[in-house]
């Protein structure tokens, strides 16, 4: 399974914030999965938008890309794209390995 690991370098100054941040993303994932089931496009768009804004700021640039795709997919009612990216996010959150670095 180690080849599935996604290594992300994060600024050491943010070390204390990361556990809380990752916990919130797990909550986002649950909400996204529920919204997918309900076809609740507004919730999908809103969480996608937040992910886009917050992910890259912490150093998780892939998360920003997924958030962008979820937001745009939801805005255009393209459920398949949203679904694909929620799955990607789920895989990402399960496999991300954080390496703290001095900036």
């Amino acid at each position, binding site marked *: 399974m180690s080849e599935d690991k996604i290594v992300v370098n994060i600024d050491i100054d943010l070390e204390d914030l990361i556990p809380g941040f990752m916990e919130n993303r797990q909550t986002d994932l649950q909400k996204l999965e529920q919204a997918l089931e309900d076809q609740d496009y507004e919730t999908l768009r809103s969480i996608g938008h937040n992910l886009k*804004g917050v992910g890259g700021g912490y150093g998780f640039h892939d998360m920003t890309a997924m958030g962008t795709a979820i937001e745009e997919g939801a805005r255009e009612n393209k459920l398949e794209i949203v679904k694909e990216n929620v799955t990607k996010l789920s895989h990402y959150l399960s496999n991300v390995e954080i390496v703290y670095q001095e900036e």
Partner: protein
Amino acid sequence: MDKEYRLLVVDDEQDMLVLLESMLKNGGFDVKTVTSGEDALIEMQENKPDLVITDLFMGERMNGMQLMENIHKNAPLLPVIILSGQAQIRDAVKATHMGSAAFLTKPIEKEKLLEQVGQVLNITASGRENKEFSESIIYKSNVMEELVDLSVAVAATSVTVFIMGETGTGKEILAKAIHESSERRNKPFIGINCGAIPEQLLESELFGHEKGAFTGAASRHDGLFQAASGGTIFLDEIGDMPLSLQVKLLRVLQDMEVRPVGSTKNIPIDVRIISATHRDLEEMVDAGEFRSDLYYRLKVVPLVIPKLSDRCEDIPLLADHFLEQHAQANNKKKKHLSPESLNYLMAAEWPGNIRQLNNVIELCATLSKTKNISLSLVKSGLQDRNTQMKTLKEAKSEFEKNYLIGVLKMSAGHVANAAKIAGRNRTEFYKLLGTHNIEPGKFRSKNKA
């Protein structure tokens, strides 16, 4: 950093808030965070920050732009940086015009954020010295020094400016000085007197028109907003703008887009807007003659030019400047004012302000046969009614008001009869009375007494 700058950060997204807090604290700043614009305004009453950083969209609550408007009502020069998850150029341009010091898009990079914050704080700390600006405005009075300081700080931004001042105080000169001191100086400065152009023409002048949009529109024409692209547009006598056009101008300010007459397409614009009036717009808003929403959009940073009589210590400098100008323009030796003449000028009322002073000096310099301008010549120059002429609009309005009072007196306050005399229907007549704040009841009671 010698001083620890206090920053207030506003974002409804908790993860973003703690991230910004961490980045800024690591950058050496004292940071306070809140999750809404409403809380930010409360926090600011207790601790005034040096800079506010706010998210643009915060759910259903007050957005970043509204927060900035509220902040600038009490602290027009407090820098505000706006963050947005949407990289919309239109939002960025609009934010700049509303007075934001910078516009950053998410995801936020620490280096970029700290660089931007540093730049913004430097602007506010150092923007006070500008010799060029001071040279174009002649003054030594404290009241003008304060105005110039404020204007120089404003010039460093693209914020919308509103200049208030009596007729002849130099509103256009100040607007030009702000443009010349800004980064827009190499782009056009375009001024237009909103009261001098008929309503139908004004719309097409400002926003342009398409070919065939109206009779006589033989070709397409770019409006002044487009012509001033990248520069500054100066809307003089904004108080004279008709209500129908006020709505259209409001839309331009909200969206930073213009729609030419006869076109279905909006064209984005990048123009700094400076407006001015000698009228009391607040009074006009109360009377329903000026839209309050437009008033607050225009009045992001209000600048008040004092009357000449409130800065009489500047009169010798100004008079000397006009004498110099007159000598150069006519290729003659410069004339001088005797000390008594100067004292007389300094004690005068000057209802026409600097324009009137210029006219009087010009007249005296032309008529004086000696090198020194005598007191008697100055006195007669000041009595010249021509220097105090009203504008046609002011004269018409005054005539209309006196006429309405006359017919009301004649009809003992009976509106239907007064309207008949005036050849208007009652509704129209009431509207006219409203425009001039005339209360017909007063004429009734007076006549009965």
